[in-house]
């Protein structure tokens, strides 16, 4: 007990009150108690379900495309009763608080899921046992970078072997996304539910009642986010380890710009994900005949592009001149890409270079919704769906049926994804982290001069 006290005394900030320190300790106890031995040998399990690929017999059974998977490890679980199996994006989030108490465990967990017993030969990460082929948002690279940075700060020297291993494996995963989830090859991504269960008008993982497909703002923003963090890692590796990572930095820089500009280009439907009139991003439903319509639901899907905001070192030009020159040349050749976002060629008033999907104008317009108490801002954080939809449910008619999205702040009132979680109002903590990080990064660039007005519910009424 006294040794446990001493340990927590050493890692608890002095600024916390006794109560707050206790909350922190018990929250971490919850994380640590939620480790679980997870055993799942797919080859054996599939065989026991009648699958015999060697005889040409494939059983029609769940997860049959994951025959390579062999899990027999202690893993951080979302919840050992309600969710006693891993979920790959939850896991990435877990590693951040866990790194406060055991950075080695956090690093081991991140590497585990990129190892050959987990990562599919095609580069996909397993989502969770209900359907390993489902797609979770790619937050793994962000967790790798965050845990690496914390470890570097803690020990005075970054674990480059860890960073390189993860970077190489994540490159396979990035390529999987590009080849599988960009339906038309135009840098606009789908991905299905992307972890946000019932946030959409339809079940985003199923066949649409209208036919056609969804062009997803969040899928596309997550990929821009993925590219920007890979750029950040490549820059670190180029500076700290080997200059040949400069080429990878350029690859991810250019890829980011292609994705970013695609969000602002009319796609095949003639409609942009960025709705210039409303000043927010929407998913676009594309019908089989090629026409499209924006699904005007104000949700996290529309705020997520903010998350793709990354700080690059101020001395980038001096340290990586080749990267810098090539990036500049690329932007000169493709001026339309640079026009819609913030590029790292300039140091802002805040003293930093950033790469961001949104320029200051878009940032201001999105924050107009995010910081409005009648929309997203609640006393406890940013809602997953705008409160506007309490009185103005979004209704979409297709095939004689009406699909509605209504602001529902408590339990889910739909059966989508088991009906156990709800993205139509509740505040999701990891998303707060993503949005706060984005604002901090914007501030590092824009400085004190950039201000927005916050609308309170009272002022509006």
């Amino acid at each position: 007990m006294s040794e446990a006290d001493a340990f927590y005394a050493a890692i608890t900030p002095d600024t916390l009150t006794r109560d707050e320190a206790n909350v922190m300790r018990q929250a971490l106890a919850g994380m640590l108690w939620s480790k679980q031995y997870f055993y799942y040998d797919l080859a054996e399990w599939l065989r026991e379900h009648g699958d015999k690929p060697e005889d040409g017999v494939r059983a029609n059974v769940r997860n049959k495309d994951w025959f390579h998977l062999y899990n027999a490890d202690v893993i951080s679980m979302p919840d050992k009763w309600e969710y006693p199996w891993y979920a790959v994006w939850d896991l990435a989030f877990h590693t951040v608080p866990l790194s406060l108490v055991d950075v080695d465990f956090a690093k081991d967990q991140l590497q585990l899921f990129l190892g050959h017993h987990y990562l599919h030969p095609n580069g996909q990460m397993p989502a969770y046992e209900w359907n390993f082929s489902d797609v979770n948002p790619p937050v793994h690279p962000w967790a790798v970078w965050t845990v690496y940075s914390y470890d570097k700060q803690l020990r005075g020297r970054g674990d480059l072997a860890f960073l390189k291993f993860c970077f190489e494996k994540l490159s396979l995963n990035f390529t999987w996304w590009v080849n599988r989830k960009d339906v038309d090859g135009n840098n606009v991504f789908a991905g299905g539910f992307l972890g946000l269960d019932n946030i959409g008008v339809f079940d985003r993982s199923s066949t649409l009642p209208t036919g056609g497909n969804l062009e997803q703002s969040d899928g596309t923003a997550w990929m821009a986010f993925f590219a920007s963090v890979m750029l950040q890692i490549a820059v670190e590796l180029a500076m700290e380890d080997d200059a040949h990572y400069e080429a990878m930095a350029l690859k991810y820089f250019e890829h980011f710009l292609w994705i970013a500009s695609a969000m602002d280009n009319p796609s095949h439907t003639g409609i942009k994900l960025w709705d210039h009139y409303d000043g927010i991003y929407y998913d676009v439903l594309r019908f089989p005949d090629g026409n499209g319509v924006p699904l005007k639901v104000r949700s996290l899907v529309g705020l997520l592009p903010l998350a793709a905001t990354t700080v690059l070192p101020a001395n980038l030009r001096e340290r990586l001149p080749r990267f810098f020159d090539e990036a500049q040349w690329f932007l000169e050749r493709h001026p339309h890409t640079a026009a819609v976002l913030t590029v790292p060629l300039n140091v802002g008033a805040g003293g930093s270079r950033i790469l961001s999907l949104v320029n200051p104008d878009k940032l201001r317009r999105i924050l107009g919704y995010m910081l409005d108490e009648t929309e997203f801002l609640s006393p406890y954080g940013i809602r997953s769906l705008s409160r506007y939809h309490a009185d103005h449910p979004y209704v979409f008619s297709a095939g004689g049926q009406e699909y509605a999205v209504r602001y529902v702040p408590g339990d889910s009132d739909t059966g989508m994804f088991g009906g156990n979680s709800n993205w139509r109002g509740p505040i999701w903590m990891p998303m707060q982290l993503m949005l706060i990080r984005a604002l901090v990064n914007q501030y590092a660039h824009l400085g004190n001069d950039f201000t927005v007005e916050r609308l309170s519910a009272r002022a509006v009424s």
Partner: protein
Amino acid sequence: MNQTSEPSAEHIRLQDDREGRAAWKKWGPYLSERQWGTVREDYSSNGDAWNYFSHDNAQYRAYRWGEDGLAGISDNRQLLCFAVALWNGRDPILKERLFGLSNSEGNHGEDVKEYYFYLDSTPTHSYMKYLYKYPHAEYPYVQIIEANKARDKHAEEYELLDTGIFDEDRYFDVFVEYAKVEPEDVLIQITVRNRGPEPAEIHVLPTLWFRNTWSWRQKEEKPELKVLAAGTTCEPLARSIVSLENDFSTATPQSICCSLKTKRTLSEHSISPTHSRIARTASFRPWSTETRTPSTPNRAGPKLPPTIDSQCQRRDGRWFDCDSPTNRPTSCGLRLGRHSTRRSRTACRKPTHSMRRSRQTR
């Protein structure tokens, strides 16, 4: 932060573990709280994982891919598990695992219907503390299922507190603490405190068992559990001996060992396994008196006869039986570890089966 020049003892353990000097993370809270209703255990033809293996089934069916329990721990390959089982003398079944509704039973999907708290843990699990709140009265399994069934998606969930079972604080606080003397020497303290106005009956069964690794393939070696006579010293058998011994307690325990049922018994009781499995019986349970024979709670299910085979066992339970007075803690202490030279009551031999070694990813 209060950064002192001296690293804390726990920081040293973390470093020793990282550098391979001592496997401080080998034992930890790696036991799940729910193995039933998972995809891994689902051998149905329609992929209905929740209904193929229910909470009710978990009493008498062996799991294929993992184990669960209350406040439990295991090694990092989950060969050997330890958890606490409880009985208030009224429930039709032992409280061996957390109860909750399956996805189709809850009006908002699956939901655990218990109160338990992770109070403390260090990162190497050198110290851990857990709290479970166990009602004096018969646990309202059926009431919770029925009340939730009657509600729709627009109503709130019906919770355990709503049943009134905790009124007047008629429950036990059961604290479970673990402290490691060495990486493989774990002290266990279970403290029961009756919060109610009157004394109440409680049975505490700290339980040690093996995950079933031997029924799924031929020629897998079975592990063994043995009760050694009191007073004898447990000789370490090479590196394969692990002992669970009584360290201290305010009640005198009785040791109960049990074996597991075979799949033949299972089919005789008309559960239809699509896969060969082994049923875990009720045989280690301390209900030899006829007046207290628990049965499966209000649902169709087999009641398997206890068989106790003192020679070769897979599961060991200590039975601490007491009337818990109001607000005075009752404790029992155990010690789980290798290389013990203390008085020992149970020893178990770990199998040298062919399961692959725990892998490092790097």
